[in-house]
């Protein structure tokens, strides 16, 4: 990346200053400060910095150097988060406009992409934030992404655009939810950040299950589609297993028993002569057999999503992965069932009872899945847990218990002398 940066430095040196609203040596200064940081073994960015564009509570991360005298051109070095198009396809002229804009009004350095998915503009001065925002919205019809205690920029896997396994329209859902919840994305109303991610199947290529408060993962509820001829092609060695993902090493001849049947976690596959059989009601849709034989096996046709809740990084109570909450839900625009029956009840609950800086996952742990069921108004299902509780510490409610809780010590003592 340094080579690339140096190249930009060169480029900027050649540009006349009126082609740049930020000092031309911003790159040199950044690399300079980086050097000092290496030497000191400490970052040289000041803490925080509340800047932004009018009316938005997110989209800009304020940064100031603590070596401003030494490196004046990065005295301010705010980032802007630009909401990427779903699954990150671009046309060159769109990208070029971004470059021209950022070259002119910013450091010319960016991240494609940030971990949440945004296009990250790395480093500009406060003065340029509004102008950039105006250019983005008026000229490029492009909005900022999220930061702060907002809905964060949703993202999704490539899905149906170029993947044969996607069980949901990841891009459409991502786009629709982003648009529908613009207010939540730009104006902090939550106790903390909230993230949506959309994976087309359980392979989880956008890692939604580990990185989003609400994770949508495509799945199916009918049967895996089998092309028996293709199965034979795999057995015969005419097609490389796992689409050739292991071709770099000689793993020997493909062995369907060893590589597929035996590895099926539910042991629900077997061969009847030349015929591959699957007991689909035992299948947990782990994708393994499909991954190994993409030409022969495909997910079912009756598709929808599983919704899992509460993934997050370690701060504070330790990391969490998302918990299975809605096993299967059909996903058809305008997705009202998801919005009204799932997302909004959860947000209402979280905004009502969540503590400051408490992620959804932590709230679920604090109040228990039982409370979550009440909030969503859904019945309990064993699928929500790996196993039932092993401790008998059940918090019974008064209405569960015959006769209620009001008791009279006198009545008790009438039967039991002290």
């Amino acid at each position: 990346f340094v080579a690339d940066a140096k190249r930009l430095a060169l480029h900027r040196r050649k540009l006349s200053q009126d082609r740049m609203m930020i000092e031309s040596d911003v790159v040199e200064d950044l690399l300079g400060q980086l050097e000092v940081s290496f030497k000191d073994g400490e970052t040289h960015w000041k803490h925080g910095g509340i800047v932004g564009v009018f009316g938005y509570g997110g989209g800009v991360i304020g940064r100031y150097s603590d070596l401003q005298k030494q490196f004046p051109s990065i005295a301010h070095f705010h980032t802007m988060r630009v909401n990427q198009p779903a699954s990150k396809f671009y046309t060159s002229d769109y990208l070029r406009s971004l470059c021209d804009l950022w070259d002119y009004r910013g450091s010319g350095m960016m991240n494609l992409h940030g971990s949440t998915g945004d296009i990250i503009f790395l480093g500009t001065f406060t003065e340029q934030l509004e102008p950039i925002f105006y250019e983005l919205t008026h000229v490029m019809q492009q909005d900022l992404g999220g930061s702060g205690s907002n809905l964060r920029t949703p993202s999704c896997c490539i899905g149906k655009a170029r993947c044969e396994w996607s069980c949901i329209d990841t891009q459409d859902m991502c786009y629709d939810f982003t648009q529908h919840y613009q207010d939540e994305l730009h104006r902090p109303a939550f106790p903390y950040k909230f993230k949506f991610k959309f994976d087309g199947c359980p392979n989880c290529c956008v890692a939604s299950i580990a990185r989003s408060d609400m994770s949508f993962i495509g799945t199916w509820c009918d049967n895996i589609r089998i092309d028996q001829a293709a199965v034979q092609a795999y057995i015969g060695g005419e097609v490389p297993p796992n689409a050739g993902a292991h071709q770099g090493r000689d793993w020997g001849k493909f062995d369907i028993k060893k590589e597929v049947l035996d590895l099926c976690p539910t042991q629900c596959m077997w061969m009847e002569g030349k015929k591959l059989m699957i007991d689909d009601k035992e299948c947990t849709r782990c994708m393994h057999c499909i991954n190994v034989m993409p030409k022969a096996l495909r997910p079912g046709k009756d598709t929808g999503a599983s919704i899992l809740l509460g993934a997050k990084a370690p701060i504070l109570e330790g990391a969490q992965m998302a918990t299975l909450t809605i096993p299967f839900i059909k996903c058809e625009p305008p997705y009202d069932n998801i919005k009204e029956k799932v997302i909004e009840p959860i947000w209402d609950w979280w905004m009502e009872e969540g503590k400051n800086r408490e992620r959804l996952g932590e709230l679920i742990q604090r109040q228990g899945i039982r409370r979550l069921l009440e909030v969503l108004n859904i019945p309990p299902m064993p699928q929500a847990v790996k196993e039932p509780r092993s401790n008998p510490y059940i918090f019974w409610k008064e209405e569960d218990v015959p006769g209620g809780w009001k008791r009279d010590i006198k009545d008790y003592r009438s039967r039991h002398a002290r």
Partner: protein
Amino acid sequence: MGLSTNRLGLYNPEKPMENRLTDMGPRHFWQYFPPIIQKNYGKWLYHEILEPGVLVHVSETGAKVFTVRCGGARFMTVEHVREICDIADKHCGGYVRFTTRNNIEFMVDNLEKLDALKKDLAGRKHVTGSLKFPIGGTGAGVTNIVHTQGYIHCHTPATDASSMVKAVMDDLFEYFQGMTLPAQVRVSMACCLNMCGAVHCSDIALLGYHRKPPIVDDEVMASVCEIPLVIAACPTAAISPTKTDDGKKSVKINDERCMFCGNCYTMCMALPLSDSQGDCVTILAGGKISNRINAPRFSKVVIPALPNNFPRFPEVCQSVRKIIEVYAANAKKYERIGDWAERVGWERFFEQCEIPFSQHLIDDYRLQYDTYRTSTLFKYTPASWEVSKAVGGVED
């Protein structure tokens, strides 16, 4: 020297310390080993279960010891014990032992003695006609139910032990006498969650449980209990200090926070929990203790509450039987109940055992997070479809 027969025997209340013997510990075990055990101690080569309840162990000396295991109600009277002694004298040279699950083991050193012993045992019946010494409890079956005191002796039970165990055991008797199950099934019973007997790792556990917060006996609280200790005793901090209308120091209970553990009552008699309607029986399943194939495992709560229907507990008996029958029909050889449930998935367990899955079964205690299902790996069952319907995920 024989046992004394006067009221205070060797004890002289005037001089309580006079020739008091202490710290002598138990008798040494060796003297109680029958000769064949002494001779072959540590020399055993292998064993075989000849028939339900009858084991033979073969020694490298060539010697064989035949063991007949009989069901023992661990609650015994001197009369019953004396009868056991008679049998031991008659067949076993006066030796007998008890197992870690309170069964009685008679040992003989040859087949003739074995037959005689078995005949004798088979002939001994209670006035009620039931066998006094049923033979069984070995191998892939149900052996004796370990249990606790209940109403016979304890002050904290949420149910009775002996009567429930008797009822369940009668119902499972065929499994005590047969070895027809995929693996051993260990049933244990505890009358409160102190779980004397540690039923927490049993294939099936029966547990007495309170469901009403303690009643505060304000009148005596301050006088009979250390209020600070009482408050500290509560794991959920549901107890706080208060004053009664007539100004007495006492405590109050935040009912919503109570999880009915009874620890406060253990510490303080002025906080009784037991209640005829509140107290219930909780069923746990899927635990194990041995390290065979996989690690020991806790039992899981599968039925939160069944009524205390004394003395035969029909609901409890039916539930236990149902689980064992479904298990017997579906598990693979060597699979314990928990192995089977984990292989097919707990969602299948509940579906097949026709046990409704209630929210009470979802952990909400300290380590709850580790029980959450954080994956998309599940099987569809009616329970999951109910959830999908509730959110308009599928057509009704």
